[in-house]
């Protein structure tokens, strides 16, 4: 076994093998890479992984210490690591439900949407589990389903789920489209949308379809579900 003779006898044989594997240098690197990929970026800086692996070895495989090394590292707080991760389908569904303050009576339709976006829950065939990298989740069909999910959920068209966008955004019947958008960007994207995104959204909001009412109506009511769906479908919301 890895160049070492095991002859402890009985169960001790197995224990020695596990010991050998746990202390193998590849193990510290493998586990550190997985953690850094999960919490920092798809391709984590090798220097960071190296320091985490060192902690793993010196702390006898204490994951808490390894995570501390990661969290107190400059790489963790760097500009490059900020919103570097694309949300997995599950993360997208959950974060959309949370952002909308959705009241969920029947979770099954949400589970089905998670599958449609590409992550059928508990149905991953390989024992290695679902991927922690963006390229597994970002493809044409999946992106369209992400957008359709946010639109459908925000429009209250998912069975067993209800969101009250109006009270979430603190809307009055007279609130104008510009204010709706500002509040939606503030609430859903923490105000951190690229100027191009906001500009695009503003243009769309001028279209008569959003302002449900006829053009000559004195008060133009905004279709809040559509606005929320649009803002939640922004590229900024796809990252965590």
């Amino acid at each position, binding site marked *: 076994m890895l160049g070492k003779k095991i002859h402890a006898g009985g169960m001790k044989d197995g224990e020695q093998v596990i010991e050998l594997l746990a202390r193998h240098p590849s193990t510290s690197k493998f586990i550190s890479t997985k953690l850094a990929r999960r919490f920092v970026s798809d391709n984590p800086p090798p220097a960071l992984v190296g320091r985490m692996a060192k902690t793993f070895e010196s702390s006898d495989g204490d994951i808490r210490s390894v995570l501390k090394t990661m969290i107190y590292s400059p790489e963790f707080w760097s500009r490059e690591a900020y919103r570097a991760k694309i949300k997995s389908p599950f993360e997208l569904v959950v974060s959309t439900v949370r952002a909308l303050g959705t009241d969920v009576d029947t979770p099954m339709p949400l589970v089905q949407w998670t599958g449609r976006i*590409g992550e059928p829950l508990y149905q991953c065939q390989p024992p290695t589990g679902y991927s922690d990298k963006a390229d597994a989740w970002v*493809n*044409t*069909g999946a992106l*369209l389903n992400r957008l359709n999910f946010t*639109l459908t959920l925000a429009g209250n068209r998912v069975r067993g789920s209800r969101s009250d966008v109006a009270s979430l955004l603190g809307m009055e019947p007279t609130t104008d489209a510009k204010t709706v958008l500002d509040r939606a960007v503030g609430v859903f994207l923490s105000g951190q949308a*690229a100027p191009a995104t906001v500009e*695009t*959204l503003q243009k769309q909001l001028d279209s008569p379809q959003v302002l449900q009412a006829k053009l000559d109506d004195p008060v133009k009511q905004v279709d809040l579900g559509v606005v929320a769906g649009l803002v939640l479908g922004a*590229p900024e919301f796809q990252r965590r």
Partner: protein
Amino acid sequence: MSHECCEGVRGLKFSRRYFLKQGGVALVGMSAMPAFLQRAVAATPMPNRKQLVVLFQRGAADGLNVVVPFGESNYYRMRPTIAIPAPKRGGRGSGVVPANPELRGSGFVLANPELNGDAAIDLDGFFGLHPSLAPLEPLFHKNQLAIVHAAGSPDPTRSHFDAQDFMESGTPGVKATEDGWLDRALETLPEENVSPFRAVAMGPNLPRMLRGSAGAIALPDVRQFKVMTQSPAIGQMVEGGFEAMYAQTVDQALHGTGTETFEAIDLLRKADPTKYQPENGALYPTSRLGQSLQQIGQLLKANIGVEVLFVDCGGWDNHVNEGGVQGQLSNLLKDLGQGLAAFHQDMGDRMQDIVFVTMSEFGRTAKENGNRGTDHGHANCMFVMGGGVRGGQVYGKWPGLADHQLNEGRDLALTTDFRSVLGEVLSKHIGVADLKPVFPGFDNNLHKFPGLIKT
């Protein structure tokens, strides 16, 4: 179908992927083009290429009950309760019996319906189809269907996961391969004017074999490939909003995928594949597989530049109560046989340009187990269907089922590497000039391939 929208710009040659791959710089170039021209580029008619459909039977299909070696007495010895009886006029246990050609196709199967369905359907006097695959018999005898027996991956693993992984990566035994063989095959082909629908997988996820840089679309349902809103007017506005946001984002990954997505939505809306009804009296099963096959047919008819299509088909892991002439396997085969036959019928003359290949991660044990099922085995059979196929033959060297002939003493031994079947289809049908990058480390010698594609 003609693309009226782009009559004026037919001569333009833009590689869409060139723009996408160049990222921001190319975006500037693309933005400088008027919008209608950008659309036109996306919709420029694709060169009429050949098409390949790959079906994966997940779970390891029992090849010995799919294409039955009724001429081998060992088969009946090892499968006391689940064996498929020999055809009424075949020769059970008598070795290779040359069947009377006059009986073929018009023989007992069609003329004597009372005998139909309870025995294997004779193919060549030695092999027979499971009776539930009756719809495929005429295709075999019209030389549209070839079968390769004792084929598969040479890796000895009995793990579904590892075996599927190897058959999709195209590198048996090598775990580190990141992309799939079908993706690499596409990468070897010219990219000029390729469609966003160049490679399509029917389902919510891209299969391993299509993963990689060539790009492919996972399409659970053709009818739902659009922005879903309550009214078309809102849909248009919302789609425009999403499209603009993703076109302008500095997020590289999302920008590329976003551009492809809206291009694809636009192309599909114009082509409207759902308007194509099954032709020539084709009747697809109402199952998920049947519906996927029907939609594959629609995508092909819509002329949107589809080159490779993938469809999954699960449920083959029959450890318990597999059944014989009837039962679990029989039901799966009914669905598969009707589906393939309907597809062939629906496609009509288009079959000249299409090759349809089936594969499964490994076969099953030659002996049935104590639960009237079979366990994980080794070699299996593959179907290859199409106008360009030299059908009507069961290819491959038959290794025999005597105890000493079995792989590890339990399963059908392997005599044809699946890569030689796929390699032949890729090189002779799709036009892959160099198979080395597709199947690295494999002896891609065309002369050693089965010879099942016409040249």
